[in-house]
């Protein structure tokens, strides 16, 4: 079965690792009571990870638009093809919406993002006390949506790998996963 291109596979896994890391850090950092240096550090790292995800997602979208994804096997039911396609679209939307909502949230709180403590990123909006709680809730619920979408994505991939055994998941696995067993 035709696999995804190397850059597509690399971007997929890089973004996957960063999303899981930033998501976990988001849960941990908001759970630290009071004010500690660790908490502030995690907030900064979380923001840097989010900005990195946003940049990689843009790169990935461009690559995806310029390169066709490998076709599904002809035997795969139409409803599965269209739901997979819908879920992938949703994941793309959330890859942008989640970091963007977080970025706008911190700007609304009057705290700009200084990427890696070096590059001050653009102030798209001014500090806004009314908007802040709205963006905070939006960022939280978009994340919960993303967690749900990723969960479905993983369950579907595992179903294809271990129940259907149709090679769909292998299209996105790095080649070292099945060397000698192409």
């Amino acid at each position: 079965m035709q696999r995804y291109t190397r850059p597509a596979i690399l971007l997929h896994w890089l973004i996957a690792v960063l999303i899981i890391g930033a998501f976990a850090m988001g849960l941990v950092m908001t759970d630290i009571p009071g004010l500690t240096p660790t908490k502030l550090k995690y907030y900064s790292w979380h923001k840097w990870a989010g900005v990195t995800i946003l940049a990689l997602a843009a790169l990935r979208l461009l690559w995806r638009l310029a390169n066709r994804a490998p076709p599904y096997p002809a035997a795969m039911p139409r409803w599965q093809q269209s739901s997979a396609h819908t879920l992938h679209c949703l994941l793309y939307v959330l890859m942008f919406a989640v970091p963007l909502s977080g970025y706008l949230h911190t700007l609304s709180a009057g705290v700009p993002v200084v990427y890696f403590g070096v590059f001050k990123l653009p102030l798209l909006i001014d500090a806004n006390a009314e908007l802040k709680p709205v963006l905070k809730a939006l960022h939280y619920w978009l994340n919960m949506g993303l967690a749900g979408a990723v969960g479905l994505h993983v369950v579907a991939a595992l179903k294809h790998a271990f129940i259907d055994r149709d090679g769909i998941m292998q299209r996105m696995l790095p080649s070292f996963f099945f060397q000698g067993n192409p």
Partner: protein
Amino acid sequence: MTLSRCPFPLLHLPRLRHLLPLLPASLLAVACAAGAAPIKTDLANSSVAIAFKQMNVPVEAKFKRFSAGIDYDAGKPELAKASVDIDTASLDLGEAEMNKEVAKKDWFNSAQYPKASFVSSSIKPAGAGKLNVTGKLSIKGKSADVSFPLLVKLEAGKHVFEGALPIKRLAFNIGEGEWKDTGMVADDVTIKFRVSAAP
């Protein structure tokens, strides 16, 4: 306006004071206004803020409660006096939880040191619309002599005094324990203020 602030001390002598009613009130007002007298501050249009960097991220926060006393006459700026009292528990970082944290022992220790203050000792004219202010800054039980340039302008019929005073937070024990690490919160802090007062 109180007599004690009147630049004509002779008027304070009991005997001469009897003559006081003879002076037209308007003349007296003009005469006394020639000295530096307290002017009414307009706190709604005044602000005291601090600016600093946290992991290189610029942060600016305002104190919600403060008071300012200013004696000023544009004609005699060298007689001016200024004092500012700041409620240390009133720093607004935009998050209620954070505001509570910075009032704690490691930061302002507002329970023990509720006020930070500045009292001028000398104010000297330094060119048009500019004064050089020297005085004592006290925060968290530590005092330091500081001096800074102050801009004076008229805005909508009011005197506006504007200035910025750079300090080192560790010199005043702001941020103790693990917060002494200036890589997390920089040592450099700028106090920015703007006081608007009736002319």
